[in-house]
């Protein structure tokens, strides 16, 4: 399910139509600002718990910190989200799930890597089962700490919002189809090697 299948079906080519609509809306009608604004207040993280920073992820949505005030609502199916929070360690088994989940999400999509394990392995820097998530998916914001406190995650969401507004990430991404500055480091076949021995 990677890429956009381009073939003519009953009602014409929906991908081309969607592309034209994007060009009309974003290019001609200058709705880019609106898209960026909407994206900043609608960062819905997908429910993918990679590791134990999930405890602080959960606490960030708890009544005391309540990240829903930023419009972020943890959502269930990757198809309907636009945001992944990598909560800590990504093991080799999980890396494949992370990559597949990321590829299932519609553009524009953003990633926050949370915790020392998601940056350079943290405590598990020399472990045999650890993958660095920024080699698997392109990461936008990094949060240090093990685990980072909910304020740290809230700050990361704010930072991501800021850079979406400033760099027009969402609208540019929709226009150009892909963000040139971030790309996968490891090909998917390497990430999911264990899947197909």
């Amino acid at each position, binding site marked *: 399910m990677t890429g956009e299948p381009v073939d003519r079906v009953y009602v014409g080519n929906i991908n081309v139509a969607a592309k034209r609509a994007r060009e009309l809306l974003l290019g001609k009608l200058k709705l880019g600002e609106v898209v960026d604004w909407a994206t900043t207040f609608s960062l819905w993280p997908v429910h993918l718990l990679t590791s134990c920073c999930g405890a602080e992820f959960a606490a960030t949505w708890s009544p005391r910190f309540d990240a829903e005030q930023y419009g972020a609502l943890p959502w269930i199916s990757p198809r309907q989200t636009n945001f992944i929070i990598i909560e800590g360690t990504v093991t080799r088994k999980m890396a494949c799930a992370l990559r597949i989940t990321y590829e299932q999400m519609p553009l524009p999509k953003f990633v926050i890597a949370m915790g020392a394990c998601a940056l350079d392995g943290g*405590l598990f820097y020399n472990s045999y089962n650890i993958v660095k998530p920024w080699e698997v998916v392109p990461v936008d*914001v*990094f*949060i240090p*700490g093990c685990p980072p406190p909910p304020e740290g995650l809230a700050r990361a969401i704010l930072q991501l919002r800021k*850079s979406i507004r400033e760099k027009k990430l969402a609208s540019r991404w929709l226009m150009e189809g892909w963000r040139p500055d971030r790309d996968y480091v490891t090909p998917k076949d390497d990430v999911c090697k264990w899947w197909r021995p």
Partner: protein
Amino acid sequence: MPPKISLKKLDRRGGLFEGVKSNIHTLALGVKYLVDPQRSTLLYPKEYIEHRPGYRGFIIFIKDKCISCAACARICPSAAMKMVRVTEIDPKHPDKPRQKQYPVINYQRCIFCGFCVDVCPTEALYHVPFHDIVYENLADMFLSLEMFQVEPQRPATSEGLPVVYEVDEIKGLVKRRKS
């Protein structure tokens, strides 16, 4: 008195009357909190928590106190602290440059356990009580010796006001503006 172990009986609510009663209890409690939520949510950028002095946040290095014993790097569980060799010129003896080693920290790995602070024999390391700095580049997180000695600017301080949380008997946690 020693602890004891005891078998308890589960009272299952059955019957129509009990069912209606507990439904009403549930709905009434929901309405109670709908009317008076007793909330203490932190409106983060507008308010930020001022933590207690013992909070284990970012770590700052005081170079003058360091005796280059490398105990901090040795005890660091995640090998985040590394010793770098620096050639230093003592103002008293400018002709004799000395090789010294100082710790630098890599926040890509640091787990904020405070072992380095606790092991330092001269108190050359200390925590600042906050933990909400984020980075957009991995390279920024490997601090240089100079950066390690500077207290980072907490981003929240420029955007909001400090609050403290207190444990309350009625509402659980209570948010209080700090004057």
